[in-house]
């Protein structure tokens, strides 16, 4: 065969395969996106714009995990130096690079809504307490927004819904929302067994004692006659008894 003929042959072969592979690649990419809930990662353009050159190269060269880890380490370093703005931007980038890593959202929201907020409230050097509180609130809300995004990126796991519930409860005092988040977490199947009682506690904290009682009763019924010990039926029963007693006392007070 003449060199030119072999060259042409090789090129034709590659192009024919190229034409055949494109629909296949498209289908596989679509499948993968579906399996990863549409979060196969940010576009390359977004990465190039926001991440430094070295990290972008790593991310684009197939080492996205390493780049994200480096950002998490950066955030950790900035946290030790109490550089909250840097903490936040590193966390935002890390979660943007690898939105499907649930622990990143978890750590990131903890840094913002707890560490940064507490620092802003207690150690910021600002004299006005109102301003300090407002600043702290802003950090908490940043943490909440981050977690909201996280729950959309990893919607199949209980973890981030549970953390969002914790945040509403412990940082914002919104117990109704906390209860809603816990319920959402419980629908995922991989929630820890103790979480099912937290919905009731949150409802009670929100002032909805009847709702809490109904919830616990319902929960106990659902456990059936031979509940697993991990679900702690005795605790649920104790809560039912307590809430019923309180309700009875309340009725008595009303009658008086």
């Amino acid at each position: 065969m003449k060199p030119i003929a072999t060259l042409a042959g090789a090129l034709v072969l590659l192009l024919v395969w190229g034409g055949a592979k494109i629909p296949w690649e498209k289908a596989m990419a679509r499948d993968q996106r579906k399996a990863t809930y549409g979060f196969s990662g940010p576009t390359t353009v977004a990465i190039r714009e926001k991440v430094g050159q070295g990290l972008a190269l790593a991310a684009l060269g197939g080492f996205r995990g390493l780049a994200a880890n480096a950002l998490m380490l950066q955030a950790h370093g900035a946290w030790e130096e109490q550089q909250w703005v840097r903490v936040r931007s590193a966390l935002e980038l890390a979660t943007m690079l690898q939105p499907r890593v649930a622990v990143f959202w978890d750590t990131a929201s903890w840094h913002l809504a707890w560490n940064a907020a507490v620092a802003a409230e207690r150690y910021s050097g600002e004299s006005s307490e109102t301003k300090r509180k407002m600043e702290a609130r802003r950090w908490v809300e940043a943490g909440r927004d981050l977690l909201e995004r996280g729950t959309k990126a990893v919607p199949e796991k209980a973890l981030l819904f549970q953390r969002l519930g914790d945040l509403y409860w412990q940082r914002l005092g919104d117990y109704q929302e906390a209860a809603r988040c816990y319920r959402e977490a419980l629908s995922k199947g991989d929630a820890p067994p103790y979480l099912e009682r937290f919905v009731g506690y949150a409802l009670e904290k929100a002032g909805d004692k009847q709702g809490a009682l109904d919830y616990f009763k319902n929960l106990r019924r659902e456990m059936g006659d031979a509940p697993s010990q991990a679900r702690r039926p005795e605790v649920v029963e104790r809560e039912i008894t307590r809430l019923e007693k309180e309700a009875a006392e309340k009725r008595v007070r009303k009658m008086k």
Partner: protein
Amino acid sequence: MTGCLRRISAVAGNTFLEAVRQKVFAVLLVFALVLIGGANYFTEFSFQEQFKFLKDLGYAAISLTGLLVGLLGAAQLIPGEIEKRTILTALCRPLRRWEFVVGKYFGLTAYLALMVVVMALAVWGVLGWKEGQLLRAEGLDPEAAAAIRAEAMDPRLLQAVLLVGAKLAVVAALAVFFSTIATSTTFVMAMTLLVYLIGHLQSVAREQWLEAGEVSRWTVRIFLAVVALLVPDFNLYNLIDEIVAGNVVVWRTTLEVVGYSGVYIGVLLAAAACMFEGRDI
């Protein structure tokens, strides 16, 4: 038929032996093992994060070492043999050119596979070591212990190793393809690395090209088409990240990517053999 297999296996065996007896590769392997071992150093993080760091670093070490070995090895394969003129003593025999190319590829891939297995075992060992360390630290809380065990001995790691191996096998096939047209080892390494990097952007080019409306300049369209048609989509292997993140990746998806790699390798080798057929030595 047996003669053909014998000749291919002779070339493959010789290539494998050459790689094994090269000190550079042994040094690279040691470097990778040190890297994998040294990944134990972040201890201030949650155990999930620690495991993620370990796994990411482990796969990166495997990929990077494999990439270097694949590049250096494949560049040595044909241009190196031409430079050293050892190729003459092989190709003058009753051996078909394609048998030589295929044998070279299999020899290199066998070596890559060996390295991947050794490094994967090292990653597995480090994960086990970390597991023990964390279990001692966390005490006896059974729930935490179970979670740590699940992270450390995740059977999905096998899928990840398979994907890393498949990706490296495609890179090696690319290098073999370029080595059949190249006269210098640098050309092979540069081209392979270039395609490797572009491969991670191929999906972007592909989508831009298919959605015709977005790009109007025909020069750009042709460039996008060439990238989409000729370059493999290396983003398909990003499933590894999903596995490291602890999310579910079904075997069917993994095997489909492996199958894609297999077909791609076949096409590249066929094209390489075709190019090599017409080449004067």
